[in-house]
């Protein structure tokens, strides 16, 4: 097997607590997105399009669904004779096992796997951001700067800097200081949680951290990077200037869907320049009945629409009954909305049944989002108030 120049390690273990009922049965990276996708499709497609063909996916919470979703990796063109995609649950070693303590610990526990692939560089990614990015450009930047650690950053409003890890850089983009959620930020470049490390060097730091400090949180931001900073390692910031969204909360998840709509959405899913791949379920074409009305919406295959859809996203397998109205909402796979139901400003989970004339979030005034968890049944004529969470 030839040595790889770079491989990616994708941290996909997150439980996504802030997504509430949407992650009851599945890990956050497996959460459906955009009518057709799951969150993890974005970093996996980015890897594939960037020419990175060896990817380890570190799972943890609810790993079976992700494991079967990823399969051989062929959906992302990552079924390779050498390398390809490998799902890595935190397996129990002879001495027992535990969940990863943090991002760096997750990599530490998979040193053996990375060593098998023997890469020059390791790209660390997380599985819950919506963006299109060419990692090969970042690698070229890393090499051209003679960087030892390159961190993807994006400009955030100064007011939000206290929510991020902030990179204080010089005019050459060299990072001279790292501030974790600072009250007084010196810069507005926030870490995207995307790192390129030189593997040989990172490996040493991971082992040193694990051996020196049993109580370490095993986190890149809190442990490894500060230590490396102290050692005067060369850090560079790589500025990303396209659409990027962390969909870690119900609000941002809903908003990211609304961002897909409109005349010129910031993230154009249909663009073929940088395809987002997915497992692509086999379903019949979408059927819009004589009585259907659709406006400013994304509708996936396998759907049957007899009602009215406004400013909404419908996943595959969704059925919308006659005279039902769906507005400003996201309807997840295989959910059925019976005739006469009215849904507004809502996220409706997978396999939900909304029975006849049920009302969901109708009186939403300040954009409160109503959420119905997977597999719920909303009885006929019931009224789920705006902002409620069912499930």
């Amino acid at each position, binding site marked *: 097997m030839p040595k790889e120049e770079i491989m990616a390690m994708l941290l996909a273990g997150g439980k996504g607590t802030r997504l509430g009922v949407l992650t009851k049965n599945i890990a956050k990276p497996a959460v459906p997105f955009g009518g057709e996708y799951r969150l993890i499709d974005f970093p996996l497609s980015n890897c594939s399009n960037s020419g990175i063909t060896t990817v380890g996916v570190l799972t943890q919470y609810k790993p079976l669904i992700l494991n079967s979703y990823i399969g051989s990796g062929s959906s992302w063109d990552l079924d390779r004779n050498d390398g390809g995609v490998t799902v890595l649950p935190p397996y129990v070693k002879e001495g027992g096992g535990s969940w990863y303590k943090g991002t760096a610990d997750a990599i530490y526990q998979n040193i053996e796997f990375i060593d098998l692939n023997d890469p020059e560089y390791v790209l660390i990614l997380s599985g819950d951001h919506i963006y299109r990015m060419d990692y090969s450009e970042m690698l070229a930047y890393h090499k051209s700067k003679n960087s030892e650690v390159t961190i993807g950053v994006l400009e955030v409003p100064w007011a939000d800097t206290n929510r991020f890890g902030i990179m204080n850089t010089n005019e050459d983009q060299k990072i001279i200081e790292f501030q974790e959620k600072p009250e007084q930020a010196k810069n507005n470049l926030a870490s995207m949680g995307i790192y390129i490390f030189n593997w040989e060097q990172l490996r040493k730091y991971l082992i040193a951290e694990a051996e020196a400090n049993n109580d370490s949180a095993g986190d890149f931001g809190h442990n490894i990077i500060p230590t490396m900073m102290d050692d005067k390692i060369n850090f560079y910031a790589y500025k990303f200037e396209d659409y990027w969204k962390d969909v870690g909360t119900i609000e941002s998840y809903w908003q990211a869907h609304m961002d897909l709509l409109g005349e010129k959405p910031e993230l154009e899913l249909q663009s073929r320049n940088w395809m987002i791949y997915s497992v692509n379920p086999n379903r019949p074409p979408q059927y819009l*009945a004589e009585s259907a009305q659709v406006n400013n919406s*994304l509708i996936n295959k396998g759907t049957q629409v007899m009602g009215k859809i406004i400013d909404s996203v419908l996943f595959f397998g969704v059925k919308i009954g006659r005279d039902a109205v769906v507005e400003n909402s996201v309807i997840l796979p295989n959910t059925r909305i019976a005739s006469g139901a009215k849904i507004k400003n809502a996220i409706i989970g997978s396999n939900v049944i909304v029975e006849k004339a049920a009302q969901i979030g109708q009186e939403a005034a300040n954009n409160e989002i109503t959420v119905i968890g997977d597999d719920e049944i909303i009885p006929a004529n019931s009224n789920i108030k705006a902002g409620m969470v069912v499930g």
Partner: protein
Amino acid sequence: MMMTPVYRKGGRNMNNVMAIINNALNESFLEQLTSHRSLASVPFAARYRLIDFPLSNLVNSGVTNVGILLQTKYRSLMDHIGFGKAWDLDRKKNGLFLLPPSHIYQANTPYKGDLQNFYSNLEYIEKSNQEYVIITSPNVAANIDYRDAFNYHLENNNDITIMYKKINNFRPNTQYSVINTDDNDRVIDMQVDPHQKDYKKVSLQRYIMKKDLLLAIIDSCVSKGKWDFVKNAIIGNLDSLKVYGYPFHSYATIINSINGYYKSNLEILKPSVWQDIFLKNGPIYTKPKDEAPTAYKNGARAQNILAANGCLIEGAVENSVLFRGVKVARGAVVKNSIIMQKSELGKNAHLENVILDKDVKITANKSLKGDINLPMIVAKNTSI
């Protein structure tokens, strides 16, 4: 839920049945639609190719060894089928076999008929380890479970079983093979494309027989210089063999004319028909294509349509079938039309009763109108 049993070898199990999809048929009746592709790869029902139907039917019935006879223009078919992964037929044992025509061995000899295709692939048929064979064709779209027909074939001790469907209204200018049966469904006469249709039972071009019988019939026909599968191998043996019909009662459409192709697509807009054909005996598989969901923009109107993914609709579409990646600009109107992959309509363009092949561009303000019984066809890559 349906159960996938572990078949033991031989006997009455569907893994004792191989299939041949006969793609060496006359296909000129589809005019421009088959000028660059074979009948089998003609797009159908918003996201399929015709061959998806017979192939998925076989797989859903438990058949795991399928040979596809190729004759002409099969490049797009090869691209579509690949190694059969979409049908789970990319297998070490059995699986999918593309069977090229004899002229790749003997160039420049005149073509005699489809039995030549069977004949030049005798080795594949002989070496297959199934005892029975189903012979099908790409020009019938239906959702067929062969298991009952196969059981009937065995229990009735038929030599050949022909699936048929009773039809009351024949489409004009369409080729049908019709059969006449006695009260026990024994086939006593069969006619290929007769002017005068005395019989109402239409052959669905699905034949079940023993593989050894097929081999014997091919040998006998070829040695006598007879080269037509239906006329020689089947009709020529009606007297000497036990040939029985097996009725099919669900939706099936025979695509043997432009009119039939057009009407069949529109027929599938009826919920009862698409439920029959897409869902009844198992899914119809097709090559997966990466496409985002279809976007309906502000001001779009879409009623009574089937659409694939990746379309961008700003105008109005009704009673129509849209394949993937179709674009309908603001003010454009599409009515009773079939729009194939990646075709685009400019602003205020109007289409009625039209079939657009792939990659057609209709510029702004243009208007095309065929008749509901004579749709206008626009060839692939045309720009107007």
